[in-house]
């Protein structure tokens, strides 16, 4: 899989990473530049960190144990559409509209892709 090098990962930051050095992740690949390309790197790391917030209300990985709707297993396209509707007040909510407005359209895609990829991993 081709790794997405996104704009936030600037040259200056890569040198910072090199400083840190050590890697404890068991890795099948010999190539140092891909050594850290574990599962989490397959999608933009921003997706994960944006998505971690969702679990506090919707359950870990979107698996709800309470009355708030869970969304584990939903596709990226479904989640993107739902979040965009919340953001644009096209879908009724108590608090989701207020949350969705806090994310750019790009961030919404990243969140949707992150949870979409979790669902795919689980269905393998």
């Amino acid at each position: 899989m081709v790794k997405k090098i996104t704009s936030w990962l600037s040259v200056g930051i890569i040198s910072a990473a090199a400083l840190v050095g050590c890697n404890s992740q068991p890795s099948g690949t010999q190539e140092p530049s891909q050594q850290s390309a574990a599962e989490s790197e397959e999608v933009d790391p921003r997706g994960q960190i944006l998505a971690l917030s969702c679990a506090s209300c919707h359950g870990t990985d979107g698996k709800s144990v309470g009355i708030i709707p869970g969304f584990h297993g939903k596709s990226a396209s479904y989640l993107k559409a739902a979040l965009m509707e919340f953001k644009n007040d096209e879908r009724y909510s108590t608090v989701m509209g207020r949350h969705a407005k806090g994310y750019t359209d790009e961030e919404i895609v990243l969140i949707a892709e992150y949870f979409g990829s979790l669902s795919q991993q689980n269905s393998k």
Partner: protein
Amino acid sequence: MSQKFTRRDFSKLVMAGAAGSTLSLFGGAKPLFANQKHVVVVGGGFGGASAAKYIKKLDSSIAVTLVEPLTTYYTCPFSNWVLGGLKEMKDIAQTYDVLKNTHGVEVIHDTATEIDAANHSVTLKGGKVLKYDRLVVSPGIDFDYDAIEGYSEEVANTVMPHAYKAGPQTELLAKQLQEMKDGDNVIICPPGNPFRCPPGPYERASLVANYLKKNKPNSKVIILDTKEKFSKQGLFTKGWERLYGDLIEWRAGSAGGKIVSVDPANMTVQTANGPVKGGVINVIPPQKVGKIALDAGLTNESGWCPVNPITFESTIHPGIHVIGDASIAGAMPKSGFAASSQGKVTAASIVRLMQGMVPAPPSLVNTCYSLVGPGYGISVAAVYKLTSDGIVSIKGAGGLTPMDADDDQLSEEATYARGWYNNIAQDIWG
């Protein structure tokens, strides 16, 4: 409006974090095994338990040790529901069994007494010394008992509970409310800013009023506030009028609310406008950083802990991350939700640093539900981002339940408040 936060700004902050990590990796700490990295987490509340669980979840090869004195942790969120008779203590009890048995976190029930930042070690009350590559400190708050004349830890434990750390204090206040004579008043004295859970005292007043209305109809709640305004004030005030009429009276600091001393023997509090007598007096003292953070020199002149906003690594001691109520986290309130959000961001940052990768820009959230009545919920939410001004809440997002929300929405919010508790507890301790 805040300035644009450039990639250059971000890399500067990351470089600061990376310098710390270099120290922590090569600074003399001895991991458990040659290649295994070790994170110690001090404090098993919303912040610390979230960090411990998510480090293991994101990279199970990292050894995580959680130090927490309590074997059963009672959450402050929902403890007001216990006071109001809507929940029992067992409903707000969390344990560490799942973190231990399912997620592989080593849990030590002991108290951290000393942090040696230079040697990367933590000493426990029981004598054990833990070495770490990175340390997460999530100690919450301590109370400044001396700030109010006549008040003390002993008074809190016997006559005038604060009930602002859940557990025996919650049980004491609940018992006092049950035993109080009909016709006596409940006095609630919230502290000045900053304090944990800004809407907490006002949700408490609401649920106590709900209890009094049914059980002691001749009693009232009087809030003696040191402040001039409070969290979700408009929504609370409207809800109080609708549900309880004049059963709750709020006095601002300038209107005789500010208390100057307490007299436990006579069950009175002294204000600028004279003494106020109560059947139950709930004094919530001013708050300060948890002791271990102060002792470890992690605080600045504000009394709280300055941190790098990407990694929550201390700007004073590299290799130590401070999260939750103890940290200075820009616009974020001191809340359980915020602490958990910070715990997860910190976990993700630590994992990436330990894997030799750059931490992702942080994304932080807070959502805070309060009950005005059993079927009447209100909320405030915020999404935060990093700018050159630090962590700020994103304009146009978040905010309060609308003032004109209809009964259906208020009822839904009350239902979602319960759902929120179930999921966040599961996300942290489950």
